[in-house]
């Protein structure tokens, strides 16, 4: 990956929230890169700062949020320093967002059609006729049957999956370069989930846009992403290509995440990560995952680990990768699964090659 096709680059981003009990440090020094036409996934459990990171990119943080440090470079401009008057030229128009909850993100008192077409009339200055035609076209593209009828209906007449398609159509109406999907399928059932993911992949391929995909579902990540960022307690703990993360995970938190994902061969009790994430009012001094980590070293409690290079594309922030650290192998169950996955992959590739 060279740097010429870099679309968006966040560097050392720190975001806190002022609350009555003190400052909650939601994002603590996140750096990430998004290249043209690629999908990156940000994975992590609830409260790890995934959503806050993308909200910062979209400029839709709540009023009590403070961007303490860092930059988000997009087309040569720093989004963290941009004022509201200029930001709405980028928000929606260049960077689109698909929400977590399609049920409450549509205006209940406005017809579906107008909610899509207003993007075009206001944002792109289209006249009403052509905006309507374009909206109908978009509704068809996201798989709404009978767009002509649906155009004049209200959100309450749509099911959850249909509403999510509308939200996607709204995001696409502006033809954004970057599409951010913040857990777009969490509120939907599994069959609808698969359709929506397929739809996002199709759109991405057709328009060659870049996608930031946020999820806590590793199964979804494997299907969607080119590269994966694993986030924990406001920090990126490991990142690499999807193959790096699934076949050669290095951070104990990534091990734990992968280990707690069920698959067809899982026997006995599913492994869960013990404990809960730390309170971000007073984040731990050392590695935030140390308290829940069975492989924690003494140094983990005192110093935060830097990123250690595994390969050109793969980095992990754990002291286990330090040359002086004891060699800790990947947990046995996970290792077996990785071997099985590699074998299946090889078989699949072989059959595909014939």
């Amino acid at each position, binding site marked *: 990956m060279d740097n010429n096709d870099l679309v968006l680059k966040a560097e050392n981003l720190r975001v806190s929230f002022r609350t009555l009990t003190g400052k909650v440090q939601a994002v603590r020094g996140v750096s990430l890169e998004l290249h043209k036409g690629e999908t990156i996934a940000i994975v992590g459990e609830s409260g790890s700062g995934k959503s806050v990171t993308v909200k910062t990119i979209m400029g839709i943080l709540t009023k009590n949020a403070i961007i303490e440090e860092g930059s988000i470079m997009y087309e040569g401009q720093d989004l963290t320093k941009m004022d509201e008057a200029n930001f709405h030229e980028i928000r929606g128009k260049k960077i689109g967002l698909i929400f977590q*909850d399609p049920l409450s993100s549509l205006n209940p008192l406005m017809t579906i059609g107008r909610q899509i077409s207003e993007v075009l009339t206001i*944002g792109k200055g289209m006249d009403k006729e052509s905006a309507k035609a374009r909206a109908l076209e978009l509704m068809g593209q996201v798989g709404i049957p009978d767009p002509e009828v649906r155009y004049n209906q209200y959100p309450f007449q749509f099911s959850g999956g249909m509403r999510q398609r509308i939200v996607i159509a709204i995001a696409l109406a502006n033809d954004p370069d970057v599409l951010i999907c913040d857990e777009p399928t969490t509120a939907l059932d599994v069959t609808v989930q698969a359709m929506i993911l397929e739809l996002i992949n199709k759109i991405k391929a057709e328009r060659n846009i870049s996608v930031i995909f946020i999820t806590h579902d590793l199964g979804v990540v494997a299907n969607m992403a080119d590269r994966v960022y694993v986030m924990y307690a406001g920090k990126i703990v490991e990142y690499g290509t999807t193959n790096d993360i699934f076949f050669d995970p290095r951070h104990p938190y990534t091990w734990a995440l992968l280990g707690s994902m069920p698959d067809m061969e899982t026997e006995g009790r599913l492994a869960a990560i013990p404990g809960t994430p730390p309170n971000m009012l007073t984040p731990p001094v050392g590695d935030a995952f140390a308290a829940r980590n069975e492989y924690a070293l003494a140094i983990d409690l005192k110093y935060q680990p830097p990123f250690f290079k595994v390969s050109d594309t793969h980095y992990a922030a754990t002291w286990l990768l330090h040359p002086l650290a004891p060699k800790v192998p990947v947990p046995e169950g996970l290792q077996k699964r990785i071997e099985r996955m590699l074998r299946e992959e090889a078989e699949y590739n072989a059959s595909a090659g014939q």
Partner: protein
Amino acid sequence: MAKYIFQRILAAILTLFVILTIAFCVVRLMPGSVFDDPDLSDSVKKVLEERAHLDKPIFVQYLYFLKGVVTENDWGTSVKLSPGMPAFQVIVQKIPVTMALNFISLLIAVPFGALFGILAAMKNKTKVDTAISVGVILGISIPSFVFATCLQYFLAYKFGWFPILYQPTATTAVKVSSMVLPIFALALSPIATITRYLRGELIEVLNSDFMVLAKTKGLNQFQATVRHALRNAAMPLVSIILHMFAGVVGGSLVIERMFSIPGVGGLMIKSINALDHSLTVAVLIFYAMISVATALIVDLTYGVVDPRVRMGGKKDE
């Protein structure tokens, strides 16, 4: 929609019937009779009572009353205040001044309340918001008669800007200026109520998911507020404003008296004191009709504004 309207109207008629029954019973159960006059001989009194069916049990009286209402639209006759005049006709004479007072004060309250409410919501958690909120608390907690007294004392008596009492017979200019204080006194509480509700609703709507979506669509704050927030915030306001109308009419009962405005409120108090029962019942029903009518209008406007109500939750998927 037709079914919805029919249901609402039927409910309104039933409500009115219940109120009518209670009003009739309560008033008739009050001790004393308009014919308890020492100047009347017993035989004359007996004839009069017989003619008004007052010698019969209350249930029979009620049936006579109902029969009059349903068959001849006869709501009883005033006996004392305007002898021989149908009760509703007495009220009709007093309606214009009462309605003018109430409508104008509400008409003034809506734009002011909306203005303050939007201002407070947009400037949430600033000094502007705090100042407006303090004003709202004062406006809601000060009873209109206390406020009216202050207005009369300062603006009318001390500064002499307005007449203290209503001047029905004076020139138009004086008459209008004598209406200013009562209207102002009546409008205070509605202004505060509208401000409070609109501020609350708007703050909530401004923080809703669809407002975030509106922003991520590329609308700026102003476009998003006008297109998506105001209508959603105004929804509950529709019902509040109309219900408030019923409240204002009730409040004007006292205000009319303080400014000696010859309206329906004064009529009610006089008719009770004069034991003119038919008139009291008619006035009560007049007030009830206003309340029921506003409630009906609220329900119907909801249907117009909110598609979910209009379609009766009908989904076609």
